């Protein structure tokens, strides 16, 4: 602590750099794919951080996080499809998503009050899978497996000119067109920033301290007089609400919502990987985990494809290096991390403060 450069400081510095990169992303990386990656990172930071509220701050494992994400996404998607582009359907969709999420969260929370805590993971898994099946079956509302395509509010249309020059053409700033696409990205960035800061404030609040006490020693917290179950249900609801809002934001950005973008179990696994890799219970870990994994998703697969070709003559190895098999490697990394670095990157680096 005396040399002034601590692990905590390092992690915060990295997070700050990531935030700066995301803020200027449209100006720094001017191809379409990079902006996609940047927006996805923003969304997943919020999604993973809200999941971390649960797993990291209260120690309960839920497999229903994508379900809440999906409620928010489908809420906006269905209304944008039915009512046409505009802000009203987005707002109503967000509200509807949050409302449904809260009802489900309270229902699951109350049900698990009555049963052993260990059932929680199983019950949420079952609930999420039922919702996933329902979403692909009730195709008149949800578009089934194909999902729903719709238009975003007018402001976000690529043709929209935020500022125009004397000739009526869209104004360029540092060679970047100030059009609807840019507005759309900053909508994502700012909404996610607000949600993230809210969560950060929450974990720093007295309530966050109570949660940590509960995580450290449930029996003791109960003995001191905290109503553990009530707190847990509250955090579950809060986390569900934020996941649902993240879903709405993602739906507006993508202009498409389907099981694969919002509800699928693959996303749940992504979230788990991100929170474990980044580090549970730190909030900063969510940022690092989301960045690493989203980048890996977009770029590692290319690398694996090249590697698979390179070893094409070896048996089985090309099969395992096939870009479709990247989950295989992530799974192995995941297991090793849980064994050797259960605190993840952020937790491990920050823990050095206490030992040195």
């Amino acid at each position, binding site marked *: 602590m005396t040399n002034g450069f601590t692990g905590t400081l390092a992690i915060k510095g990295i997070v700050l750099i990531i935030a700066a990169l995301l803020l200027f992303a449209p100006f720094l990386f001017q191809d379409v794919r990079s902006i996609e990656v940047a927006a996805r990172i923003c969304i997943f930071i919020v999604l993973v951080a809200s999941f971390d509220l649960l*797993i990291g701050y209260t*120690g309960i*494992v839920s497999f229903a996080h994508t379900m809440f994400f999906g409620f928010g996404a489908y809420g906006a998607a269905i209304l944008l499809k039915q009512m046409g582009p505009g802000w009203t359907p987005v707002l109503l969709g967000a509200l509807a998503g949050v409302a449904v999420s809260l009802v489900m969260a309270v229902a699951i929370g109350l*049900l698990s009050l*009555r*049963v*052993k805590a*260990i*059932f929680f*993971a*199983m*019950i949420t*898994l*079952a*609930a999420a*899978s*039922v919702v996933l*099946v*329902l979403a692909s*079956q009730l195709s008149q509302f949800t578009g089934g497996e194909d999902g729903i395509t719709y238009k975003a509010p007018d402001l976000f249309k690529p043709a929209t000119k935020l500022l125009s020059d004397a000739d009526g053409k869209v104004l360029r700033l540092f060679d970047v067109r100030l059009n609807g696409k840019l507005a759309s990205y900053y909508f994502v960035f700012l909404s996610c920033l607000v949600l993230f800061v809210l969560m950060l404030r929450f974990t720093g609040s007295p309530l966050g301290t109570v949660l940590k006490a509960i995580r450290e020693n449930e029996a003791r917290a109960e003995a001191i007089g905290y109503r553990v179950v009530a707190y847990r249900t509250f955090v579950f609801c809060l986390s569900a609400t934020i996941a649902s809002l993240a879903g709405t934001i993602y739906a507006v950005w993508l202009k498409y919502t389907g099981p694969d973008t919002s509800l699928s*179990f693959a996303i749940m*696994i992504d979230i*788990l990987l991100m929170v*474990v890799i980044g580090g549970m219970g730190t909030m900063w870990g969510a940022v690092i985990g989301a960045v690493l994994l989203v980048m890996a998703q977009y770029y590692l697969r290319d690398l694996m494809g090249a590697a698979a070709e390179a070893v094409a003559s070896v048996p*089985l190895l090309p*099969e*395992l290096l*096939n870009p*479709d*098999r990247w*989950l*295989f490697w*992530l*799974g*192995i990394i*995941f*297991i090793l991390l*849980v*064994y050797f670095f*259960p605190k993840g990157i952020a937790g491990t680096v920050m823990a050095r403060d206490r030992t040195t």
Partner: protein
Amino acid sequence: MEQLSNILGRMGGVNLLPVALAAVAFVLIGAPSSWVTLTVAGLAMGMMVFLMASGLSLVFGLMDVLNFGHSAFVSFGAFVAATVLAGLSGWLGAESIALEALALALAFLAAILFGLVAGWFFETVIIRPVYRDHLRQILITMGAMIVAEQTILAFWGGTPYAVPRPHFLEGAWIIGDVSIEIYRGFAFALGLLVFIAMVLVLNRTRIGLLVRAGVEDREMVEALGFRVDRLFIGVFMAGSALAALGGAMWAGYETLITPALGGELMIVVFIVVIIGGLGSVEGTLLGAILVGLMSNYLGFLAPKLALASNMVLMVAILLWRPNGLRPAVK
């Protein structure tokens, strides 16, 4: 009211639930022949799910270990058995019942052996380091499930894999206007045999006594001088082998399998284990039969509802009995 519940209790209590369900379904379905077909299908499915679920339930009861990777044993069992059957397709085509039966037996045996070995590996390498740490247990076994599923994809590919089955199990028995698929009858009978064997082992042998006692109070069994952790490896391996056998039977039942099979069945298995009561073999059977019957009846009566039926069943039962129908510990 109390009298009524006493009478019901003496007649078998919660064990009557499947009978009650079947009776209600009989009235709703109306056609006896369809009802018989569906009931047999439900019982067969229940028995296969029971095989998959019983190990998970005992493993939790004994060591408080929750294995989210259990479905990997089911998937591997299905694919191993299917591969053996495909490899022995010459025997299956030889028109000799003996050879066909031998091929089937070998396929099941291969699945069981695989389950034993994989179970041993899983217990010693994956689970042992995280005993008593539920959070890491859930995460690690989940990770193992991902790796296992990807391994299946790498070996067998993502396209549906056709499972050849012996001719003598093809077709259906026709009794009057009732038709019963032979394979379903076979699956039910085999499942029942395994169940009876399990109950005998658990109630009549010393090992079984130790397992039952360990589910109730692990520390006390250790304080009496027994290494529950060593016992646990055996139970884990047996449970994995049973899951693999269940998967192998399921493969023959579906005849077309994909690597997603384990994950899809996992939800059903969890629901069965929860409503049966963790740690109880009889409870698991009860839960499995209920879920099997419910899925088949509702699949016929209201296909749209069938999707959520298991979930509704679970919620209803948990609201009524928070520890499941027949929890192991009184």
